[in-house]
């Protein structure tokens, strides 16, 4: 290993003399991380949903004695989607070409059913097939839930009015018919039969509880939302873990690929092959270089995140006590990515193409790692065989899990196995470089 260490020292010296290369190697993955964050942010943007009104909704609707301004009510409860009023044909066309992700349709007779309060009217939802469909369905369910919350107060008020009539008597209307009700109170004074009187008293007591009972039936569980000073998305654990993994993977893979290919470009490998250093030692020096640089710069990124978190006064703060645990993880992740880069270098013809191929291969590897497993299980399986996703989980658990060691060991084990396989493959192909 003495000779690998000598070569590593040489590589570090060369790297120090290439500040521009170093700056690009650090800034490029950070730029990618920023772009990914923006894309992820766009993924959180409100999807456009066509709103087709086949019922010619009136401006206002009176339900249970309360007046609803229809459009205003719908807009108020549809926070998570952008509702675009369209006619049916245009909505179908936009759904086909992807301009809207769903159509919500108000069928004819909707308001009449709503006002009759006998049967629940239906809204119709049409979505595309694909990743967004389930998300839009959830958001539309949330929209209907919110509308129901608005309406149920009116329905409960209407029902309580009928209960009040039963209790105290008076005049009411139902399905457009007026009717007079004697009411239990007045009935009690006109009845002499003690059993009937007792029944009326019990009924009065029971009906007095109807108000609360109706509220409780309508909302067995209520969700109370409290705004807290939580982490912003940009400083979240996920973003931090992804940024670390991205910088580590990108930097280490490209650096190792370029460094190994440069040995061949300068025709030094043949000189080394004359007993000065074995191919395994040369490979080990490149993997060590990748690991060392990834650890130093990864730690820099972690500290920068921490400073930003502290400066922003983010709740929870930066888990500074966990940052040292990142060092071995960064070394391991850098070494694995370095072995990957070395493998790329053995397949490329010279340093420039090795660097380009490394970039081209690392990018889809990173994208595979950020595809949610629920969205595309196959992407998850492929990603499991590559280092990036394991790096993300390793950094995430080390920084933020209460008891990270079991997950950390599993992910480190994965990384080690992948790294050994990559190193062995690169070593087997190293002979190509001296041919």
């Amino acid at each position, binding site marked *: 290993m003495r000779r690998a260490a000598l070569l590593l020292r040489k590589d570090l010296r060369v790297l120090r003399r290439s500040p521009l290369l170093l700056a690009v190697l650090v800034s490029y993955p950070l730029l990618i991380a920023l772009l990914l964050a923006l894309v992820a942010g766009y993924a959180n943007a409100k999807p456009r949903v066509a709103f087709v009104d086949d019922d010619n909704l009136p401006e206002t609707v009176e339900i249970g004695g309360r007046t609803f301004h229809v459009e205003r009510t719908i807009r108020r409860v549809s926070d998570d989607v952008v509702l675009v009023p369209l006619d049916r044909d245009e909505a179908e066309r936009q759904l086909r070409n992807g301009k809207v992700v769903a159509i919500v349709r108000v069928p004819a007779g909707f308001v009449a059913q709503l006002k009759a309060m006998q049967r629940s009217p239906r809204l119709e939802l049409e979505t595309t097939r694909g990743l967004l469909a389930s998300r839009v369905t959830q958001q539309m369910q949330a929209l209907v839930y919110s509308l129901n919350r608005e309406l149920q107060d009116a329905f409960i008020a209407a029902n309580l009015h009928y209960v009040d009539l039963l209790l105290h008597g008076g005049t009411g209307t139902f399905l457009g018919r007026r009717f007079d009700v004697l009411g239990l109170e007045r009935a009690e004074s006109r009845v002499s039969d003690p059993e009937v009187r007792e029944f009326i008293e019990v009924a009065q007591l029971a009906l007095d509880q109807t108000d609360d009972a109706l509220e409780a039936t309508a909302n067995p569980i209520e969700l109370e939302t409290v705004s807290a000073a939580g982490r912003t998305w940009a400083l979240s654990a996920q973003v931090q873990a992804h940024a670390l993994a991205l910088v580590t993977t990108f930097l280490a893979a490209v650096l190792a690929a370029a460094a190994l290919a440069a040995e061949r470009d300068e025709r*030094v490998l043949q000189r080394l092959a004359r007993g000065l250093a074995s191919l395994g030692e040369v490979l080990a020096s490149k993997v060590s270089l990748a690991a060392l640089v990834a650890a130093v710069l990864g730690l820099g990124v972690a500290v920068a995140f921490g400073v930003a978190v502290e400066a922003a006064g983010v709740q929870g703060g930066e888990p500074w006590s966990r940052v040292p645990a990142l060092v071995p993880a960064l070394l391991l992740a850098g070494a694995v990515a370095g072995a990957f880069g070395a493998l790329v270098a053995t397949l490329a013809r010279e340093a420039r193409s090795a660097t380009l191929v490394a970039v081209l291969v690392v990018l889809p590897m990173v994208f595979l790692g950020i595809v949610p497993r629920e969205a595309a299980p196959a992407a998850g399986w492929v990603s499991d065989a590559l280092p990036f996703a394991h790096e993300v989980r390793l950094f995430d658990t080390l920084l933020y899990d209460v008891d990270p060691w079991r997950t950390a060991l599993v992910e480190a084990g994965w990384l080690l196995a992948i790294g050994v396989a990559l190193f062995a493959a690169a070593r087997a192909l190293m002979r190509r470089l*001296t*041919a």
Partner: protein
Amino acid sequence: MIQARGVSRRYGAHVALHETDFDLASGELVALVGPNGAGKSTLLSVLAGALEPSTGSVERRVSTGWAPQRPALYSRLTPRENVELFARLARAPVVGVDLPERPAAELSVGQRQRLNLALAFLGDPRVLLLDEPTAALDDDRRAALWQQVAALCTDGGAVVFATQLHEETERADRVVQLHGGHVE
């Protein structure tokens, strides 16, 4: 000092060096000559152990120094740093080089060739394998090089060099002619 038996070298379908035997005795100065692509550099690389032969074997009984036709050195390191690194790798004493202290990439072609030769002489090898060693050297440096070569041979060492220059072959004890990968 070096014995090669049945060595050949193939690059894919192209045979750069057909099966060849080669022996180098103590005190010998051998010139490899032939047109471009004759196989001179390939034979030297195989003898030096820089290139694995496709067939055959090479036995080196003494230490060897090798200077390839195109300098094999780290262009971002200075001459001193190159010498230090290769000397330490070879566990040889570090020697001084009379070259500017700037990255090898910024040196002239002749200066790079001098560094290339300096690396070949590291550790005082008993056999030198030099591929067109005087290319790009000025007259004084050429004379100095031939003096070193002659001294080594006189001292019981041996040198094999490839050349395109007829006057350099006159210095050799033996001339090996190559053509199309065959020794003629």
